[in-house]
């Protein structure tokens, strides 16, 4: 219970500090309006923020100055701070680059871009690059079992590392760095294919329902209502049980079934959006004109409706990709998703998870599962940052 006491005492100290800060500011600046009219909440916020920054700086200093051979409680915090600063600088440089290189249009886009969005775009580009060139980037194959198992990440021989395997090897001796790189290809690639399939199914049916209306619309909409009434992860797990019985011992077939199952489940959400957007478009005059010209259904959907529905569908694609990606990662983590020997981040987290318990005396060992989980989180966070910015821009919500 002493931890709670410390927490409460700390908060009280910060509360007193906030009052002192405002009081001192008033006295020193001779009642400058900035301090005179400062609400107590703002003063508290400043002191609270300052305490956090000082604590982080102190923790970082401790993590740097500690002897590398001794257990280091602040190792992870130090690495996280380093990563955060590095990413922020990279995003800032990338935005600077975007502002000076490229056409007028892209330059203008980069000028109004917040740092989070440029970070997101940079990350997506890096992931796409790694995913496409995984075969050339990875030092070893994804299924290759090497001579040494359980090599500690970090590449320091004194601590059980090996410079040949910078991120170490797993329990049966596969190189973790190579598997992380191939994981980008497998996990991201499969999620991307699934999302495209979901958009193809949901988008086509949604536009069809919007254009034809009548009984087709009714049947599809009610079917989607029912499918959406079952929580998606639960439904996916139920169908995966059945798919695993269908696939038998053919592991790759299970992955194919998983793609189809998740695509169908997620296409219901796409259908809703495509139908709603389509309904707004089919009442336009130019659709009427096209119908009078005698254009066919295919022309109406792909040449008239689709181009006018791109913006909302694109934002939805980003979000949907995140959901699909997280569902696949969760399924793999639970052991029913992407099957070995394919390298995949969710499975890697599950396999390496127990090493977290060694964090106290061997922080490097514990970082392996966090790297795989972090790789998933980083991509979804990046996509969400970009989508958030796009939605904010298109909705005109400037407040």
């Amino acid at each position: 219970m002493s931890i709670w006491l410390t927490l409460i005492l700390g908060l009280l100290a910060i509360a007193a500090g906030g009052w002192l800060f405002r009081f001192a500011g008033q006295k020193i600046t001779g009642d400058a309006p900035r301090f005179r009219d400062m609400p107590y909440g703002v003063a508290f916020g400043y002191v609270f923020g300052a305490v956090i920054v000082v604590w982080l700086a102190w923790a970082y200093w401790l993590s740097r100055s500690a002897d590398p051979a001794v257990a280091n409680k602040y190792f992870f915090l130090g690495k996280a701070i380093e990563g955060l600063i590095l990413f922020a600088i990279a995003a800032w440089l990338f935005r600077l680059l975007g502002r000076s290189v490229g056409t007028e249009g892209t330059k203008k886009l980069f000028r109004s871009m917040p740092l989070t969005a440029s970070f997101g775009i940079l990350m997506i580009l890096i992931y796409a690059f790694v995913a496409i060139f995984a075969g050339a980037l990875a030092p070893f194959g994804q299924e290759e079992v090497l001579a040494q198992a359980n090599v500690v990440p970090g590449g320091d021989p004194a601590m059980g590392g090996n410079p040949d395997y910078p991120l170490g090897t797993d329990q049966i001796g596969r190189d973790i760095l190579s598997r992380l790189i191939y994981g980008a290809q497998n996990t991201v690639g499969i999620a991307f294919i699934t999302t495209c399939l979901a958009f193809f199914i949901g988008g086509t049916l949604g536009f069809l329902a919007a254009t034809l209306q009548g009984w087709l619309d009714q049947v599809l909409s009610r079917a989607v209502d029912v499918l959406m009434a079952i929580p998606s992860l639960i439904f996916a797990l139920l169908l995966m049980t059945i798919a695993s019985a269908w696939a038998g011992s053919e592991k790759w077939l299970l992955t194919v079934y998983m793609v189809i199952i998740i695509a169908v489940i997620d296409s219901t959400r796409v259908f809703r959006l495509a139908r709603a957007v389509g309904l707004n478009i089919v009442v336009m005059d130019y659709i009427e004109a096209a119908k009078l010209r005698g254009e066919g259904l295919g022309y109406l959907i792909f040449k008239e409706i689709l181009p006018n529905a791109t913006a909302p569908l694109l934002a939805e694609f980003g979000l949907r990709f995140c959901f699909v990606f997280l569902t696949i990662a969760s399924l793999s983590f639970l052991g029913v998703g992407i099957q070995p020997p394919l390298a995949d981040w969710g499975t890697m987290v599950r396999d390496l998870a127990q090493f977290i318990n060694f964090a106290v005396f061997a922080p490097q060992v514990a970082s392996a599962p966090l790297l795989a989980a972090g790789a998933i989180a980083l991509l979804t966070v990046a996509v969400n940052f970009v989508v958030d910015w796009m939605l904010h821009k298109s909705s005109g919500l400037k407040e």
Partner: protein
Amino acid sequence: MTSILRIIAQRLLLGILTLFVVSIVIFTAVNMLPGDFAQLILGQGATPEAVEAIRKDLGLDQPPITRYFQWLASALQGDLGNSFAQANFASFVGADGSTNMASVAAQIAPRFENTLFLAGVTALIAVPFSLFLGILAALYRNSIFDRATNILTLSSISSPEFFLAYILILFLAVLNPILPSLSNIYADMPFDERLTRTLLPALTLTLVVTAHMMRMTRAAIINLLASPYIEMARLKGISPMRVIVKHALPNALAPIINVVALNLAYLITGVVVVEVVFVYPGIGQLFVDSVKIRDIPVVQACCLIFATAYILLNLTADILSIISNPRLRHPK
């Protein structure tokens, strides 16, 4: 008042209808299994006679429609069938396969209670926390605080649950042993210990659901701040905090209640992964274990329970938003 009752009755009927169709979907999906239950129970080396006997025993020789209504009728009476794995175990120990030990309902009941406990603790932490953050973010909108909260909550909602769970385990259980990393709770555990062990999974789920609720609260309040009566309150010289809490918040409650109910529905799904990470003996973990060993009756029952809870909470969100909005209460 009668119109409210009528709307609620309509929604309830619609919910029951949805549930009925969902049960058909679940039943059909399970019936798409290759071979049948009997083959699955006995495995590859079963004699045809044994398979036939089990088929008779389970009523598999009847047409699907009869079986569906039998399943539905017994499910409504709380009898969800017998678990394959438990039945196997029971026959291995020498007990009769159809005893209480093997019944799915007996297996699920205590775990369902645990899951509700976890969801309840999460809601108790998450709802006040996100309302507090949302009000603060609306009060200090576009400040550093607002932006930092926005970025942090967006990151936490887009990370996978297991990442957040392991980060929390790393910092709160391994590096600083404050809370236990395994939530192995059992029936007659003292309440405070049970709470301590539930706290870490509850905190993980809090991180997952806070973002949505907090953003909704902030957006709903900011939406109202432009209205004339808020301007009036401000001109009277009321402090900004009081304007938000006394004048804006009551009118923003409808969307907030709605999003809270929807997020509680989301908790039902999120609970699966988190329970597996923390080895929490809830219904989600049972579900995943049954999926892995293809224990069909348990999978079917869990699916039905999850879907029911999900539909009920969505229904609640629907009804609450109708009640709190006069324009929906009196449709033209």
